[in-house]
């Protein structure tokens, strides 16, 4: 048996230090035996703080609906009918439909949020078309752009989640897909304006984005350059 020279208490064989004063146990006749049965295992239980999802969802709902409701009331009080405030209400509704699945759903949050958000954004734009004097832009212009953007974002999310890429490869993938998306958006816009495709402004975005992707892919393959970059840009 060993005693703490500082506290005078006997110590369990498994204690390498006195738990009361942290003094190391020194007993030449009976050195500390690390194989002695410990009072508790060394392993720690993982304790994650529980998330209060419903509370967060309620908070998110209040934070989005309260400004919308305030705008509608103010608008109604001033002009005796809801005019501009309806756009705020639609925007907040769309925002809410993106945020809520992120809070409430436990699995595949990003994908579910994107799908629900896309539907709600399309619906929002459709309602706005009904409210503004200029008609006929929703089906040929707004809807294709929303669907196409959602499709590209979905592919990026799935790639990030299910394909194991390094950071640089992932960035290269993201930039090249964004380049493609920009081109598709110009095609849709051109078709809406004069029914013919002449790529102009999208090339200004496409070329640098593709170049950046290529540079990233090259850096990814050169270990020396990669190490140098890591050194220079470490946070």
């Amino acid at each position, binding site marked *: 048996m060993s005693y703490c020279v500082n*506290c005078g208490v006997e110590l369990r064989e498994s204690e390498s230090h006195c738990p*009361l004063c942290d003094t190391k146990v020194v007993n030449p006749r009976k050195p*500390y035996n690390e194989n002695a049965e410990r009072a508790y295992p060394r392993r720690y239980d993982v304790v994650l703080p529980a998330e209060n999802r419903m509370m967060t969802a309620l908070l998110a709902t209040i934070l989005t609906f309260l400004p919308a409701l305030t705008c509608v009331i103010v608008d109604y009080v001033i002009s005796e009918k809801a005019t501009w405030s309806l756009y705020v209400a639609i925007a907040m509704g769309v925002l809410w439909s993106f945020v809520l699945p992120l809070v409430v759903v436990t699995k595949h949050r990003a994908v579910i949020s994107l799908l629900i958000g896309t539907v709600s954004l399309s619906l929002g734009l459709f309602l706005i078309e009904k409210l503004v004097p200029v008609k006929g832009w929703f089906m040929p212009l707004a809807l294709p752009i929303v669907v196409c953007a959602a499709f590209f974002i979905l592919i990026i999310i799935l790639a990030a989640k299910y394909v194991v890429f390094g950071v640089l490869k992932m960035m290269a993938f993201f930039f090249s897909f964004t380049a493609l998306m920009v081109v598709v958006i110009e095609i849709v816009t051109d078709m809406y304006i004069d029914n013919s495709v002449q790529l102009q402004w999208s090339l200004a975005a496409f070329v640098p984005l593709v170049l950046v992707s290529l540079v990233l892919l090259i850096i990814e393959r050169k270990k020396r350059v990669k190490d140098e970059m890591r050194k220079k840009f470490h946070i």
Partner: protein
Amino acid sequence: MEKKWYRLDNAAKIFPVTKNSMWSNNFRVSVTLNEKIDPERLQKALEMTLPRFPNFSLTMKKGLFWYYLEHREGCPQVSEDAANPLRRFRTNKNRFLFRVRYYERRIAVEMFHVIADGNSSMLFLKTLAANYLRLGGVEIPNTHGVLDINEKPSDEEMEDSYQKYASFRVNKPRKERKAYHPKGVELKYNEIKIITGQINLRKLSEKSKEYKATITEFLCALLIKCFLDRQEREGARKKKPVKICIPVNLRSFYPSKSFRNFVLYTNPGVDPAYGNYTFEEIITQVHHFMGLNINEKNMNAMMSTNISSERNPFLKLLPLFIKNFGMLVAYRMYGESLTTCTFSNIGKMTLPDEMMPYVERFDFILNRQRNNAHAVSAVGFKDRLNITFTSKLVDSDLERDFFTSLVKMGIPVKIESNKNYEGE
């Protein structure tokens, strides 16, 4: 089949309210045998034991006005113990409110205070350990708190004894002065510091008798002394009273057979504003305070006061989330803030003679409180008393003061802990 459900007993009503994402009011009882625990055999023993204790086959749900407990089928899996036991219980997803853990030669049962108190959890542990040994071929009779698993559980065992025995003669005021709370650097939220001192029961009993006090009174007075010294060292300008919350088992006053909570508490202490107390003066103060307060009349008055609030028709009809808010405010005013720490001595354990050679020791550990930094618990078995300090503070000054004081009085102490040191 309709699931059986129960109202929360009067003491349990506060526990779901005070629990948060990091902490719940848990405690743990454990028994150390003289052979390594076989998890499969322990699982079988648990499956045999559980039907005898309907208060363990429960899960907690939310109603519109109150929480309630609902019967659930099945049996939880036994799990390996960890260096940070007593982690909080989550009550969603139909979860059990207790867990059985094993480590080397030890079987431990951790539970949320909603379903049982220390007394009935010891019955569960003893019966579980007896069944475990029986599966290994040991013959053990059903005596000394080992229950007959073939017996049908009675309704009396699931009753809310507070409701049954409260007489409603008076309403006792709850107002008391706020107590001193030690300051210090806290551990990480998922850590807990546990230090256990094994003490020779005979020597401790002799020393207590020298001071004309019981063991609980003696240890409580020593604890108060250590807290007073700590407050002195902290150098606070305005000193606050040091009060210890001591749970009182009401089964000693009433013939209750309930497995659920049936405890109240009393808060002995001293106020350093009146001057410096010697150890003898503290013991006298604690001894007389407990003599005056721990009696059937006083406990019944406390019990009746608690139940009157629960029966108030206006409060009853408030929706749960408003009630929770109100109860949390009341808890802040009349709960932990009135005491410095809790000290629960569950007494000396007895077992059937046939079981004695196979059992080495019992332990009883209270989780640290929600705000108070320390909790102290004690249980006796054979010739030893195991006193366990749980704490959320990094420093162990209080524990050191307490145990070295015992050593200085000529009472030997053997220390163990859950601390891990680097480079061990």
